[in-house]
C-alpha cells in the first residue's frame, strides 16, 4: 500500500474529488479548509511571478526585499489517500490531469509507503510485508 499526498490549488478540490471518484477512488482525507504552502518561487511576488530555479543568491535577494509586497505563502489544499501499489500510477495520473494548468503553483504529489491499514469498525488488518 502507498499513501499519496497531493498539495493542490484550492479551487481544484471539487474537480479532483470528482475525478478520483470517477476513477474509482472515493476514499480520501483532506485538511480542513486550507494549508499554507510555497515552492521554489518562495510564495507570490508581483514583480516576478515565476522563475525556474532558486539559487542561494536569488534567495538572498528575495529575503532582502521581503516585507515590501510579497505573499510568503499561498493557500493550498492538502489531501491524501492510501491505495494499493498497482493503483498508484492511476491515481497520480488522475490528479496530474485534473490539476495541471501549466503555471507555477499547480502543486506536488508525494508517494510514501504504508505498512499496515486497520479498519476500525471491524478490526480487520491489511498488512504488507514486502515493499512494491
Amino acid at each position: 500500500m502507498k499513501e499519496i499526498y497531493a498539495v493542490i490549488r484550492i479551487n481544484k478540490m471539487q474537480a479532483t474529488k470528482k475525478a478520483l471518484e470517477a476513477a474509482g477512488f472515493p476514499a480520501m482525507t483532506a485538511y480542513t479548509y486550507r494549508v499554507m504552502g510555497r515552492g521554489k518561487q518562495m510564495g507570490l511576488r508581483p514583480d516576478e511571478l515565476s522563475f525556474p530555479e532558486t539559487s542561494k543568491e536569488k534567495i538572498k535577494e528575495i529575503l532582502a526585499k521581503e516585507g515590501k509586497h510579497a505573499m510568503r505563502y499561498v493557500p493550498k489544499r492538502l489531501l491524501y489517500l492510501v491505495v494499493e501499489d498497482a493503483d498508484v500510477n492511476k491515481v497520480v495520473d488522475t490528479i496530474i490531469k485534473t490539476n495541471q494548468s501549466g503555471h507555477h503553483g499547480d502543486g506536488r504529489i508525494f508517494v510514501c509507503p504504508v505498512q499496515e491499514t486497520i479498519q476500525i469498525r471491524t478490526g480487520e488488518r491489511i498488512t504488507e510485508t514486502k515493499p512494491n
Partner: protein
Amino acid sequence: MKMIRAIVRPEKAEEVVGALAEAGFVALTKIDVVGRGKQKGIEVEGIRYDELPKTMLLLVAREENVDEIVDIIMENARTGRFGDGRIFISPVEESYTIRTGQRGL
C-alpha cells in the same frame, strides 16, 4: 527522498522558515494543528488544556539534506522548555510536479 514533519511552536515557525530559506530550502507546507505530548498538555490554574496549538511544517527533501534541515529546525525552534515540539522523518518513494507532470523533486 524523505518527508520531514516538524511540529513546532507557532510563534517559532517563521524563524524556522526564515532560517531554512537562508540555507536554500524554500519549499514547504505550513499547517495549523493542535496536539499534546508526554506532559498531557498543560495545566493552568486547575484547568487542563490538552489540545495545544502548534504549527506543522511539512517538507520533502533529498536524503543528503535531511541532517542539515533537522539541525536548522532544532536550532531555531528550541527554547529548552517542554512543548518545543518534535520532528518526524519518513520515507517518500516518488515525487511529482503537477505543472510539468515530471517525476522528481
